[in-house]
């Protein structure tokens, strides 16, 4: 894919690039449908119940049925809702989640754009989702949505900082922000080993970014009914669900690339297994962790969430940067 981008722009190249982008979109959509299906299955199994098994063989078409229902359902909009913002919010939530995939190195060859500032691109774009959530909360003219929107604004911003700080450790270690070079640098030892503290911070901050399990405050069912997307139905609600799972896809690739050595085998002797298999295995481990946490963990309270972010994660992240910098300056 990278050579295509460097060549002069002919009609043929353009068509290839567009087709590749659509192919990635399809891959992501298939991932989303079966991530939702497996999430309900895994959480069901953990709760001693079989999970969806009525639509299609073994329930495989369950999410397809849900999505088609959402598409066919009427797209209601509250009367006093702010028309433009109400329509804009799902786009603002979904677009960055998908554009962020452009820079992800799935394997050596399979990467759309090899930016030298891959990490910065990822972090920069992923914070636009907060805007989508806040506009959704404000525009749907519903008190619960408003509280949900404000809560998620506070949460995502404070954990964004912790997320970025934990990545700085790796950037110092590998000396570059290019994701492919970060993966290359992990050839002998994965980043999870030297940067284990950063790995923990990244995982926790990622949970908060995705509004999932211990930190699913914005759409806390028991308090705010459904948080910021309470007034959405039909296709717009599908967009929000899509955004959440695509964003989980992006966060999953980031964890694999930054800490678990992308497509690199555990041991060089096993390198006959292709890179994409390694990538998928590590990626689905992270996704399983998400489902597992969602089945077990209770929800944290918003003021605890704030103090945990600023007083807990952030100092740890700075400590990690200090250690890495000290380590690099002594031995480099």
């Amino acid at each position, binding site marked *: 894919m990278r050579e295509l981008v460097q060549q002069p722009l002919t009609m043929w190249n353009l068509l290839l690039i567009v087709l590749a982008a659509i192919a990635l979109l399809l891959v992501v959509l298939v991932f989303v449908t079966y991530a939702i299906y497996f999430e309900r299955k895994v959480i069901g199994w953990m709760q001693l*119940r079989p999970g969806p098994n009525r639509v299609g063989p073994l329930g495989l078409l369950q999410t397809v049925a849900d999505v088609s229902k959402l598409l066919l359902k009427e797209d209601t909009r509250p009367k006093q809702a702010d028309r433009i913002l109400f329509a804009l919010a799902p786009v603002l939530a979904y677009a960055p989640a998908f554009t962020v995939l452009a820079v992800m190195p799935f394997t050596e060859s399979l990467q759309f754009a090899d930016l030298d500032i891959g990490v910065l691109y990822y972090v920069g774009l992923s914070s636009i989702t907060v805007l989508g959530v806040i506009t959704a909360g404000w525009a749907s003219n519903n008190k619960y949505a408003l509280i949900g929107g404000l809560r998620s604004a506070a949460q995502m911003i404070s954990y964004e900082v912790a997320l970025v700080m934990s990545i700085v450790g790796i950037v110092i270690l590998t000396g570059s922000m290019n994701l492919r070079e970060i993966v290359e640098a992990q050839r002998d030892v994965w980043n999870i080993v030297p940067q284990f503290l950063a790995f923990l911070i990244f995982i926790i901050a990622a949970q908060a970014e995705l509004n999932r399990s211990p930190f699913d405050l914005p759409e806390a069912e028991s308090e705010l009914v459904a948080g910021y997307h309470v007034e959405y139905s039909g296709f717009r609600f599908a967009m929000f669900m899509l955004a959440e799972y695509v964003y989980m896809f992006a966060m999953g690739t980031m964890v694999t690339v930054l800490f678990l050595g992308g497509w690199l085998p555990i041991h060089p002797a096993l390198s006959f297994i292709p890179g994409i298999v390694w990538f998928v295995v590590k990626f689905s481990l992270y996704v399983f962790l998400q489902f597992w946490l969602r089945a*077990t963990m209770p929800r944290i309270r918003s003021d605890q969430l704030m103090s945990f972010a600023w007083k807990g994660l952030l100092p740890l992240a700075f400590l990690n940067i200090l250690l890495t910098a000290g380590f690099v300056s002594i031995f480099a």
Partner: protein
Amino acid sequence: MLGFTKGLGFTLKKLPEKKVTHKYPDEPFPMPSRFRGIQHFSPEKCIVCNQCVRICPTDCIQLTGKPHPDPERKGKIIDTYDINFEICILCDLCTEVCPTEAIVMTNNFELAVYSRDELYKDLTWLDGNRTNIREEN
């Protein structure tokens, strides 16, 4: 920090265990023998003593008797007998009080209908409802 790891370990251990869900619509739900389902009425046993109408807490039983057709037998036989299942709470007081066990409970409980007036069950329907009748009353 170990508290939540114990919880995580517990849910992971539950993952492979046998599921407890009962596949109700596919397999019928086995009710114990004493289960109080919808009543079964046998008109030939009824002596029109109105006990069930008097004891019913929600007054959902209406019945009318008519004099016995052949003259030498006195007393009455049942003419119409209908229970309004919209307000019947299946409390089993009517079967308890019926002297001749004309009305007994069965074990089936499926009573979902599309319109309310299908819930007014009359004598013939109650007589027809004779699958798995409860033995001990």
